[in-house]
């Protein structure tokens, strides 16, 4: 793995991170233009929300990103607090991956930690339940 990577030069190894970065930037641009905080845009409503009427763990993520793009951190947390935290972790994972590509070796990130997936599963499940509890104060978490 390492030897095959070392055969390429740094720009070739950076193809993956650059592609992912470009996709993320494009997605941000689409969210910016689409403005999911205003109903009626071309960005789809979460199918889980549309079909079942419940908030899935990811509901509000587009609006969260839109708020972050407009430096409105409080609104971002309000739309999907867990997704804000997840976004930070995803960014770290991306940075670690990119750094590993630059130096030409695989670096173990948080996602390879033994309990990372289990913790994620617990958090997502709790978030799913908590934001759908039909009484105060949890109704404030609905988006």
């Amino acid at each position, binding site marked *: 793995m390492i030897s095959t990577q070392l055969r390429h030069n740094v720009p070739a190894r950076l193809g993956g991170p650059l592609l992912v970065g470009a996709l993320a930037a494009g997605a941000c641009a689409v969210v910016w233009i689409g403005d999911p905080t205003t*109903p*009626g845009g*071309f960005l789809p409503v979460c199918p889980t929300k549309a079909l079942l009427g419940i908030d*899935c*763990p990811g*509901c509000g993520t587009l609006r969260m990103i839109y708020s972050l793009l407009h430096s409105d951190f409080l609104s971002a947390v309000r739309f999907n607090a867990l997704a804000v935290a997840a976004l930070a972790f*995803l960014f770290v994972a991306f940075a670690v991956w990119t750094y590993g590509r630059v130096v030409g070796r695989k670096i173990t990130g948080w996602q*390879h930690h033994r309990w990372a*997936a289990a913790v*994620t599963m617990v958090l997502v499940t709790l978030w799913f339940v908590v934001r759908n509890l039909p009484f105060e104060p949890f109704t404030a978490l609905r988006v």
Partner: protein
Amino acid sequence: MTQPPPPGNYPPPQPQGAQPSSHLVFAILTTLFCCLPFGIVSIVKASQVSGLWASGRYAEAQASSDAAKKWAMWALIAGIVVFVIYGILIAVGAVNMDFDTTTVTDY
């Protein structure tokens, strides 16, 4: 009397590689953005990988890894399909998501 043991009674040979990827980042991404239960299934599968690997069940760990990837892939595909269908419906004007609930009153 020195027949070779029948295959299958021995645990699979330990792979010389590392623990299979749990595809956790992929699973989180699809759970957040494709917004489908498939992503959650992928996270559940991802959470099984390290435990199975640590207890020496390499084949099962690999299977969970593959399943995590498969479910995340399906979540991604489902998300794209929903997005495309939604885009088509918007384009032809079949869906108007502008929930205008105001009542027009002419005085």
